[in-house]
């Protein structure tokens, strides 16, 4: 989800994804985790690789990836909204 969210803004390569996730979520993605996830997302057709720039290959979110990201973010938003509402009553 972190990677899909990062790619919502624009296509990014591995290093740019790591930096963006660190800024947005405060999470450090290790290289093994990052590429294991990219591999799966690409295999499921949620992202696609663009032509390599030097050795760096940017990734772009696909239409299917957009649909998945939208559904999950809306779900997260509903959970967060409910949680905050209940928290306000405490």
């Amino acid at each position, binding site marked *: 989800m972190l990677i899909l969210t990062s790619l919502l803004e624009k296509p990014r390569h591995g*290093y740019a994804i790591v930096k963006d996730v660190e800024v947005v979520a405060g999470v450090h993605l290790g*290289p093994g985790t990052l590429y294991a996830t990219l591999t799966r997302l690409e295999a499921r057709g949620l992202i696609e690789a663009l032509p390599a720039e030097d050795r760096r290959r940017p990734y772009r979110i696909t239409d299917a990836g957009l649909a998945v990201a939208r559904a999950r973010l809306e779900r997260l938003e509903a959970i967060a909204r409910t949680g905050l509402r209940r928290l306000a009553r405490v």
Partner: protein
Amino acid sequence: MKRLLWLYPRPWRARYQAEVRALLEATPGGWRDALDLIMGAIDARLHPQTAGYGGRRWTRALGVVCLAALGGLLLFAVDFFRFPGSGAFAGAHFLLAVVLSGGVAFASRLLGARLAAWFFGAVALRYGLSLVLSLLPIMRVVFRMVGFRMVVLSFPLHILVVDAVGIALWTSVVTLLLRWTGVRWRSGVAIAFGLELLVMSQDFWMIVAHPISPWYWQLVSALQHMSGRRG
């Protein structure tokens, strides 16, 4: 840290190595990133299908055979230098590893990787459970009561037939249980392979455990005595 990329499967490296190397050059990684890379390599080897670079089933089964045979060969060497008079015991280890993995290979060829994985998982679980139980002192009593020998720890050649029957029965029961619980076969392969390696390396654990766990060594001696071997 770049050398860790050699742990990844060749097709994976052909696809991703250049960009990962670029990433590693841009970010000074510590031990956590190194560990993360190792875990990623294990994941890539366990789930080659996710990236569409999975090899043929027969090729993978052959790889298992080679790896298990190599493990058996190493055990043979360790046993030989540790106990110079236990050639038959060490040879049985080697035989066990080859027969097990060979069985998996042929089952994979004949029945498909899925059924082979169940078979492999069941057999390895049998040995894995034996090893785990052997670590519990109380199980000595149970072993004596039910006559449940340690197949791996005590493996004289003359009880091979008895053990084969036991393994067949155990395999049938565990296979049915695993199927009933709906465990995914990929997870089964991972667990089974880890257990098999654990069991195959039991001589290493015996050596490590000896100075700190006298009761464990006593258990090994008792089992050897029960099966007619010298303690």
